[in-house]
């Protein structure tokens, strides 16, 4: 059974429908990427899962549980973490405080401490910089902090929205390596990416969306080698 | 809007004017001054509406223009010995020029900052009126020589009201007003579609500053005594704002309706409950802001009793 199931999702902002009948499955332990040209509705898919935009129809299940209409704190409680786009960290707070906020729903200090240690082993650089303000870190470090913050609730699955956006090539490589590292830890991963080539290289499976509709799906390598996918980005 | 509709509206206005000319003599001085103050609030609400209803720059200190007009009349009549009528024009001019300078500065501020900057401006001018004793008589105010002038002032207020309504009507049915509305709706879009927003905003503020100044002048001559705390009383701003919002900001008929209805209500309740009506007005502002932001006229439009928009 799939860990996260999206069935025939329709969704949009106000009067504008962005997603039309989108279906995506993510099985436990998989790395799934969602790619597609600008305006394909990739990030919108995450926003509808988190309940940030108008849900118009379809089914969303996490481990069999219907999560439509749930608040973000409830969704986190189910073990589904989310890293929003644009490496947004709390600029005026230290790295450590950022991580503590990530564990806001956890009231047990011992568990917060364990989660912090866990994040520090995954991202040693965050431990070195734990007193630094989030806003003064480089783009790549901020992305790691955003990921670490989402891991503070020890989710079984994590959703990453455009982790490479605006990063220099060196950091893009580092971030993708970290994502592979999380997968090795047994965390199920769904990633939305603009940098399709990179995302498909690390993904077990991928979905291609165009203008809010499913276009292709297959293994990462299949899609990477498919000239139609490549061409689709430039029309025709 | 067809010419026929314009004609109909003018007939209604003319009928109201005739009624206001010939009905009050039947009643007492009390009723006459009740109508006079009601007209004053029609003028004030319509003026506030030009900058705040059409342009969306909500002023929390519009009493400043009213106070400037009152003081212009007071100072020029009592200290300079002018006849009261030219002082009204002088007050309008001073107020308009002040509005242009003030507007150039504070109309760059948006939303709450403009609102509170205007509140600050009004309080600031009140303090100056209190402190500058040689000109304004300070906290003691200015007393006028006692004369019976209830007819003169009544007619002056009627003329001012007619002029204000005609100007408001023009604003409300012209491309000038539409451009002010465009600024309210989306200032960046308005700029990108050819509206020199700075010019239009300042024009709107100047226009909305002139009539309250004349009204303030007439009022000061009527009551024959002015002091800073009454001429720059924040309650005057509250009335302007509430009356226009209640009737429907951004319309011509709304502020008139709002002023007529609520001024009557407050006049009736005032007698029985001096502070209760202000508590009620406070609750009323909350209610209107939250649940009927487009006022009575919005209510009418939603039910199809009035057409949407200002030009047709």
């Amino acid at each position, binding site marked *: 059974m799939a860990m996260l199931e999206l069935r025939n999702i329709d969704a949009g902002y106000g009067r504008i429908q962005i997603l039309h009948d989108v279906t995506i499955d993510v099985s436990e332990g998989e790395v799934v990427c969602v790619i597609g040209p600008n305006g394909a509705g990739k990030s919108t898919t995450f926003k509808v899962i*988190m309940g940030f935009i108008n849900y118009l129809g379809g089914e969303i299940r996490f481990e069999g549980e219907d999560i439509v209409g749930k*608040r*973000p*704190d409830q969704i*986190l*409680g189910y073990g589904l973490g989310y890293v*929003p786009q644009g490496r*947004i960290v*709390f*600029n*005026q*707070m230290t790295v450590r*405080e950022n991580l*503590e*906020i*990530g564990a*806001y*729903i956890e009231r047990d200090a011992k568990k917060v401490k364990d989660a912090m240690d866990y994040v520090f082993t995954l991202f040693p650089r965050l431990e070195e910089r734990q007193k630094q303000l989030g806003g003064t870190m480089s783009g790549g470090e901020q992305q790691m902090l955003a990921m670490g*913050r*989402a891991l503070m*609730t020890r989710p079984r699955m994590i959703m990453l929205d455009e982790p490479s956006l605006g990063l220099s090539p060196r950091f893009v490589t580092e971030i993708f390596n970290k994502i592979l590292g999380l997968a090795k830890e047994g965390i199920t991963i769904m990633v939305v990416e603009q940098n399709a080539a990179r995302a498909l290289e690390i993904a077990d499976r991928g979905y291609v969306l165009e203008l809010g509709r499913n276009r292709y799906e297959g293994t990462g390598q299949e899609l990477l080698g498919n000239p139609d996918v490549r061409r689709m980005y430039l029309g025709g | 809007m067809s010419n026929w509709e314009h004609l109909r509206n003018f007939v209604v206005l003319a009928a109201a004017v005739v009624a206001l000319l010939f009905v009050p003599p039947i009643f007492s001085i009390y009723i006459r001054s009740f109508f006079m103050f009601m007209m004053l609030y029609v003028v004030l609400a319509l003026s506030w509406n030009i900058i705040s209803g059409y342009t*969306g720059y*909500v002023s*929390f200190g519009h009493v400043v223009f009213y106070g400037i007009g009152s003081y212009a009349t007071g100072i020029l009549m009592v200290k300079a010995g002018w006849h009261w009528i030219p002082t009204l024009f002088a007050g309008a001019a001073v107020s308009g020029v002040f509005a242009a300078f003030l507007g150039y*500065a*504070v109309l*760059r*501020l948006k*939303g*709450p*900052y403009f*609102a*509170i*900057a205007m*509140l*600050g401006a009004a*309080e*600031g001018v009140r*303090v*100056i009126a*209190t*402190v500058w004793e040689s000109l304004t008589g300070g906290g003691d105010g200015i007393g006028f020589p006692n004369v019976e002038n209830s007819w003169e002032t009544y007619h002056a207020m009627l003329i001012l009201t007619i002029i204000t309504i005609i100007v408001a009507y023009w604003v409300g049915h012209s491309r000038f007003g539409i451009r002010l509305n465009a600024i309210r709706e989306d200032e960046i879009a308005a700029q990108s579609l050819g509206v020199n927003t700075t010019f239009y905003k300042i024009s709107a503020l100047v226009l909305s500053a002139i009539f309250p100044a004349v009204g303030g002048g007439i009022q000061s001559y009527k009551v024959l005594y002015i002091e800073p705390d009454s001429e720059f009383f*924040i309650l005057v701003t*509250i009335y302007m*704002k509430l009356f226009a*919002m209640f009737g429907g900001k951004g319309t011509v008929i709304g502020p008139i309706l709002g002023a007529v209805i609520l001024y009557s209500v407050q006049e009736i309740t005032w007698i029985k409950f001096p*502070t*209760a009506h*202000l*508590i009620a*007005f*406070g*609750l009323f*502002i*909350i*209610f*209107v*802001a*939250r649940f009927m*932001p487009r006022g009575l006229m919005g209510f009418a439009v939603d039910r199809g009793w009035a057409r949407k928009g200002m030009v047709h």
Partner: protein
Amino acid sequence: MLGAFLAVAYALPFAVGIYTESVFFDLQWLADFTTVLLNGFMQGGVYAMFGAGLTLIFGVMRIINVAHGETVMLGAYMTWSAFFGLGVDPLLALFLTLPLAFVWGWFVQKVLLNAVVGGPELTPLLMTFGLGLVMIHVVEAIFTTDFRTIPYLPDALRLSENISVGRNRLISFVMATVISCGVYIFLKKHRIGKAIRATAQNADVAMVCGINIFHIYMITSGLAAALAVAGGALVSIQFGFNPETGIFYTLQAFAIIVLGGRGNFIGAMIGGVMLAVMESMISFMVPNGTAMVELAAYGLMIFVLLIRPRGLLGEKTD
């Protein structure tokens, strides 16, 4: 630019003082001046405290609460009632009034403001304006418009032969500092305080971290109301008050947060002290000073808004 402006602003009272020959620079005058500055500084601590309340609300919700000054006024009446009604010491009364204030702020947020956060910014402005009007006239209905004072430690503490500080001012300053620091530490260290700061920085991401932001809004409003009521209590033992004094405090609080940078807690502290010192200088050196004091707040506010809208310590992205 702002620095130059402030330098001019602070030099202005001196200039007027010299022009009107009320400034002498002899020993006696300098001692008086020091007394005035010291008292102004202490009053600044109280301003800073209720200014911080307004900045907190703005920082978290982007709302200007124009009833904030009325809450200060309410605090003064609560303290007055406790003093004359129950015979409670004004400082001890804080243990009673602050929880009440918190509940009041919480309640106002839940009933009135939660529904309009994030909507058109003028709606909460108008609503809190209406709320302020209600508060003024309810208090007026109960207490009338008479000015009231609380006689509390009115004697002065002599620091030297010529320099003295009002004992009530000193105590107010100490209390205000303790309360402001308490709130600051709460914001820095406590789990909920951190959540408040997180919500202020980015409400969407705070939600994704599992924070119920509406809950945070209510706590914030409660805290802000408590700061205002504490301000009212400390003002009430120094100055007379009546139901209509609230507007003045709203404008002062607004000037403080404009000066310090909207949403900036430390900025509000600095802004509060700067405003109070400026006011005390004006009242000391300028003829008709006590009336002109009000101009300080309006003048500073409008000029800072025009010259540098983000304030002294405001963020660039404002």
